[in-house]
């Protein structure tokens, strides 16, 4: 995996220079008020970064929020946007930015991905599918794609304030994060709430680096490294190709069941 193909999201501005020294040159900044589940940054902070970078806007949006987005003074160093909402795509489609489709959990087959590639520069492939499915998608895709390679997977996105509501109901001090387990299983999730809703993450890091070594890099635009909840030292190990603890290959070798009758 060429380091030049790693796209790394920033969760701590102090780490940028350290990542650069490790050979990383592509950076992704979650945008304040338009992203969810990530440490986010203002346009001023992103502008101060100076180098070309991408912005993550992964929220589902109302018209009034897109109206506000269109009033933003986008810095010149923004190369493109990685977005979830089709309406935001529609609002930006005639501007000179790379637009990348990141509809989490929905980009699971090559026809859907090629459909989006008629409109977008690239598409982020779902992490909910097997290695065979990803290989087929890469083989059939009409443009290079983004492989969600490393990170805690976001597995649920709600507009509700699930954590604070829970504690308001108990009349206890409100929290914005909650770590939970499913009793009698080894499964544990992290719920993170913001003004814009609640997301849940699996508490194991998805690590597809070994698989990434086997794919045709000409079909890859970026290997996405999501560093949220990780300390620099962990990310450093990931970039250097070392093994890390608490990781999984997710659904790479584990096909999900289509219907209950299939069990």
């Amino acid at each position, binding site marked *: 995996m060429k380091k030049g193909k790693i796209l790394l999201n920033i969760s701590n501005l102090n780490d940028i220079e350290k990542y650069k020294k490790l050979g990383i040159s592509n950076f992704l900044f979650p945008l304040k008020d338009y992203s969810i589940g990530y440490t986010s940054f203002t346009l001023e902070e992103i502008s101060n970064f100076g180098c070309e970078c991408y912005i993550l806007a992964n929220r589902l949006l109302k018209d009034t929020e897109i109206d506000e987005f269109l009033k933003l003074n986008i810095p010149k160093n923004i190369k493109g946007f990685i977005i979830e909402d089709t309406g935001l795509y529609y609002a930006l489609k005639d501007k000179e930015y790379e637009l990348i489709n990141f509809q989490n959990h929905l980009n699971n087959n090559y026809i859907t991905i090629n459909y989006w590639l008629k409109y977008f520069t690239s598409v982020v492939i779902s992490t909910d599918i097997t290695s065979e499915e990803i290989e087929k998608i890469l083989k059939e895709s009409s443009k290079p794609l983004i492989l969600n390679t490393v990170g805690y997977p976001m597995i649920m996105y709600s507009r509700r304030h699930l954590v604070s509501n829970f504690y308001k109901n108990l009349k206890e001090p409100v929290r914005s994060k909650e*770590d939970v387990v499913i009793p009698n299983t080894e499964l544990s999730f992290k719920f993170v709430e913001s003004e814009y809703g609640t997301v849940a993450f699996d508490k194991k890091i998805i690590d597809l680096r070994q698989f990434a070594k086997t794919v045709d890099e000409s079909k890859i635009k970026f290997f996405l490294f999501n560093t949220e909840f990780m300390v620099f030292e962990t990310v450093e190990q990931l970039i250097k190709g070392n093994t890390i603890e608490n990781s999984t290959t997710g659904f790479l070798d584990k096909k999900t069941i289509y219907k209950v009758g299939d069990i």
Partner: protein
Amino acid sequence: MIELLSPAGDMERLKFAYLYGADAVYLGGTSFGLRANATNFDDEELKTAVEYAHNLKKKVYVTVNIVFHNEDLDGLCEYLKFLSSIGVDAVIVSDPLVISTIKKENIDLEIHLSTQASTLNSRAVKFYMNEGVKRIVLAREASREDIKRIKKETGVDLECFIQGAMCTSFSGRCVLSNYATNRDSNRGGCAQVCRWIFKNDENRDFTIMPKDLNMITNIQSMIEDGVNSFKIEGRMRSIYYIATVLHTYKKIIDKIMTNSLSDEYIKYAENIINRVANRESVSQFYDALPTENEQYYSGRKEESNQDFLGLILDYKDQMATIEVRNYFKIGDRVQIFGPTMKTQEFTIEKIYDNEGNDIDLCNHPKEIIKIPVPFECEINSMMRTKVFDIFTEI
């Protein structure tokens, strides 16, 4: 045209839906639909369902709304052509590959965009209208202001959920089921993990489950704001649930159209709906973001009731022939409601078994009995326990 849109998990539910006021039903075939647990319709049943609906001048929409994997692509084109050939009125889709297949193959099918696409703004609607989508089923997170703006800016045919269970997350943006059970939530296998009880790091219960949706109080404003189709959730619900919910909402819509809806009737309708749903229901996102009052906290508070006492199979000479559904006895005060009849109540004074013998009570579901009823009953009307006084028009 205001459309009342009902779920239909099988042919029996479909017939009761139309009987009790549905203008259209949505249903799934045996493939490509998100309710894998429902009985659903095989190809022959789909054909029968469409013929049945069209004879009544009603509509059938077929869900083709899974999120497809590569392996699911085989047979899709043929299935869509089949749906076109039998004259289904629209397909409800979420994955754009279905849209592209319909366009590429020039298949004559109207396309409705599923709530799984989580559409919240007019720009997304314009994108999909350009792709040939005729109707948008809005995200359940859409507020009144969102609905008004989308209608104003696009004029698109809008469908909104008005009753039933809610996802905790944006529809489609959740794979808790995949992680917890390996069952694919976006391909019909959702295990409803959001309704489980978790343990937090203090070993205390933690839950995230929402109450149901209920838009009884908002139907008038939704009509004013341009919503065209009012959708009820629940393809796996009973005929009693479907009949009661449709009967109630149909009356609400009729009263709005005749300018005769009163606050008292709305209150009565809310009581009926809350009773049949077994779960508390609220307006959710329509006026404001859900608060702590729109969630459940210590498990699903389902109070299962046995209100549905029997189905009226026949009525002749003041004697109703009834298929028993739940326990009742002589002396019980009951109500009968039907598709067009006035809801009325009476006290059971006599019960006869299938051979004409006097009996005191009924406790065998599906048993056929006869009861003297002092008013005319429609076939397929339903007898229920009297819980509330019948609403009396002033």
